[in-house]
Structures are given as C-alpha cells and as structure tokens.
C-alpha cells in the first residue's frame, strides 16, 4: 500500500461522508464491528417494493472504511434488493480503486459485511 489511499477524493469522503446520519423510517438496520480496530458501522435501509429507496449510516472509522461506506451507500440507493445482495468484494475494490493491503481489506469490506447483515432479513 502506498500513500495513494490518501488521495484527495477518498480524503474528501472521510471528511464529508455521504449518507451519514439516521433514518426516521427505516425498515432494516444492522451493526457490525471490525475486530481489528473496534470500529463499528450501522447501516439503516428503507426498503419498499424490493427496492432500497433510502440509506444512511453511522459510525466512525478510518479513511478506507468511511470512503468505502460512503461509496457503497451511494451505489445502493435506488437499487433492487436482489442486485444489492449480489454485490461482491470485487465491486468494493473497484469503487475504491486503490491497492489495499490484506490487513486493511477488513476496513474496506466492513461496509459490505454490514450491508449484507441488513439485507439478510429482507424477505422477497
């Protein structure tokens, strides 16, 4: 890994994350922590007709985890639940678009793991 992770756009998302906050009328939520650092993320979803119509997240973390959660929550807004369920590690790495060490991979994937936790309880 190099200082690339501190590129301007990722730092911007760290300082001003998208979709941060709480949803009044969420239908699904899930919290998960990263045992490596103890960081915790909570994702709330409002799902209507099998579509994610709104999403917010809470929590603090490093640049990678905050940027990853920002970008993931942007991506899933207005997405069909089934499509969101199919998101993979590769999708996350593509979004972040910087080389990540194996240790920090956990930081990048905390957002996806948390989302999967929230989507697990969504019935078709």
């Amino acid at each position, binding site marked *: 890994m190099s200082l690339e992770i501190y590129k301007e756009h990722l730092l911007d998302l760290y300082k001003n994350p998208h979709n941060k906050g709480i949803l009044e009328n969420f239908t699904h939520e899930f919290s998960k922590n990263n045992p490596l650092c103890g960081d915790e993320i909570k994702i709330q979803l409002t799902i209507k007709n099998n579509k994610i119509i709104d999403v917010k997240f809470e929590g603090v973390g490093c640049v*990678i985890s905050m940027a990853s959660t920002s970008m993931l929550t942007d991506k899933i807004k207005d997405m069909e639940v089934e499509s969101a369920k199919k998101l993979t590690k590769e999708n996350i790495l593509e979004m972040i678009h910087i080389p990540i060490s194996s240790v920090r991979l956990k930081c990048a994937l905390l957002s996806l793991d948390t989302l999967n936790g929230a989507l697990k309880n969504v019935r078709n």
Partner: protein
Amino acid sequence: MNFKKDFPIFEKNPDLVYLDSASTSQKPKQVINSITAFYENENANIHRGVYDLSEEASRKYKESREIIAKFINAKPEEIIFTRNTTESINFLSYTLKNLISKANSGKIFINSSSGKSQIQEKNEIVLTEMEHHSNLIPWQQFAKKNDFKLKFIPITKNYELDYKKAKEIINKKTAILAFSHVSNVFGTENDAKKLINLAKNNGALTIVDAAQSAPHIKINVKKIDCDFLAFSGHKMFGPTGIGVLYGKQELLENLPPFLFGGGMINSVSYEDAGWAEIPEKFEAGTPNIEGAIALGEAIKYFEKISFENIKEHEKKIFGYALEKLKTLKNIIIYNPGINKSFSVISFNIKGVHPHDVASILNEYHIAIRAGHHCCMPLMKKLGISGTCRASFSIYNTKEDVDKLVLGLKKVQEIFK
C-alpha cells in the same frame, strides 16, 4: 550505547524505525544463533534419551530453566514453560479452582500461600480496568463456569489505578487478584507490592501478568511476594512460542495437571496414571526445547547489558519521545508521565483514525501499533475505538523519535 548493532534485523532493514516492542521485541544475534546452533549441533528430544545428544539437549533445557529461575529469584522447579503469557494465565484459569474448593455449606475454602486457611464466602475475582484480553477473558470464563463475580479496580483520570477504590474492592470475598504489572496501553507501572499486600491481608491468591514489565523491570518474585507470575519470551528478546509461568512451590504441588500425556507422568497403567513432580507435571509432550534454550540466551543478554543500562537508555529515549510528542498540535497522549510508566506511549492525532496514522507512518518505515491493543473494554471506557501506540526498547534511538515526530507532522499535513 549502541545496542542496535546487536540486532541483525536492523542490518537487513537499515531504514526501519521499530516502535512496536510492546507487541514483540526484536531478537539479538545471540538468541537467533542459539536456535541455529541447537538444531545444528545438539538437536534431540529431552528427558528420555540415554545417548549423549539427548543428554546434552536435556542439560541445556534444564540449564535454561535455572537461568530463568535465578533471573526472577525463584527455584527452578517453580518455573513452568508455556507458550506465552496467555497460555500461562489460561493454565491457572483451568486449574486454580482446585485451590479454592467449595465446602459443603456452600461457603468456599481457600488455601492461601500464607498458610492461613480460611472459611469465607470467597467468590470474587478482582482484576483492573486496564487488563489485556489475555488476563480478562480466561477469568470471565472461570467466573461463568464456577459462579464467581468479576470486580475491576478502576483507573483514574491520570491513567493510573485508583488505589483508594482498590482497598474497598479487594476484601474478604476476594478469591483471586490478577493484574497487569505494566499496562500495555498506558505503560503505567502498577504497584504490585501494594496490591498483593491488600490481597494477602484478605487471604486471596495473587497473579501478576508481567508480560510488559519483564522486559523493562528486574522482577523479584520473593520481593513482590506474588503467588503466580506470567510472562512471554518474545517480548524480551526471546523467540515466540516460549513463555513462563512462575508459581510458589507449595501451590504448584497442589495444582492438578493442565495437559496430559508424555513426559508428565510418574507411572501409568491402562486404567490410571500418577504424575511427575513439578515442574514436569505441567509440561506434557515434547516442549519447545530450542525456544526455552533461546530464552535462556535472551536472559543472558539482559544480564550482560544489565538492567541499570536498560533503564537508563530506555528512560532517555522514552522521556525524549514524551517531550517531543507533547510539542505536536492536536495530539492526545494517554500516559501518566515518565516516572510512573515504562516505554509505552499511546496517543491519538485529533481527527485521524489510528489506522490511518499507522498506514502513513508505514510509508516512512516507521512501525507503530494502532487499534484497541487487546483492551476493548478499556477503549470503550476512554470513549475511543483505539489509539496509536509507540513502544520502545534498548535498540531505539533519539533519531527514531525524531523520525516518528516528522512522520506525525506528515500525517497532520495530509489530513489538514
């Protein structure tokens, strides 16, 4: 004094600024060479062989136990080789119940090492709020299994133990007091003598987690008068996979074995077995022979450079680091001060996650620790998810500290 030259890793990695010795120390060449030498010249299993090679291996293994015993002022049979501090404490959490046996009345009987047997409702384990998970989770499990309560001596705003509260928390109900001698987060040296006295006065068993103190302070088990003490070889210039549990002879003799198998028996029939004397009773299976020998070498290295020199050198570097870090803007330091702590500085740069600090420093070949340091409840108490931690050893120099400070300024520039 230049101790760096004794550690080959700095030859291979000349740019390395290693500030993670509280996690594991680097190894001097004497220790590394002793492992190769053992495998090249003396490798054989110990105890049972009657040929020269096995006798030589057995002799060296035994000699190492003697070196370690002398090092902490114990008897050789009071030294049990384990994998590390964690295993030493787990061993106790599995076996100690036998020294605290329940009487028919539901009250608990305790055989304390002071020789005084007491009948008391003894069902509390006292720990501190600054315990490493390795001296917390085994006791949580012990408490669940045996219906005991856990009590915690709180920390003060100055990252020390609250001894006033300790006096209330340690009482007649206390069966076990287990505490870290030096905190792996704050570097705080806890007053072992004071805590052990409180426990003794209440007939409790005492366990010292010396993982962070053994590399920096001359341990004297007679002087602090603890019942048990645990440390890891790899934090004090030895290899990984070798650790020590010290226990008072009369207590160890009354503890049942933890692991069963070869090497720990006296006689065996198809139906039953009798145990060997201590310490063999607790060392089932082929042990980490070269690890034990190498730990003996590590201790010889300590003695060669002397604790006075270690203390003087480390204090100089540690003091310099504390002073320099304090000059940075937007830094929070979690440390009680140079006279109350050893070689560990936890800190946070405001607005920057510890992992990001560590990643950026890594670009400058500076190795620090970032995270919860196996102290999740303590982090929660401090209201943070983690800290950055720089820890020092004899091979660190003022130049290392200067590089750290420069690296941290870079961090602040990036996050400006």
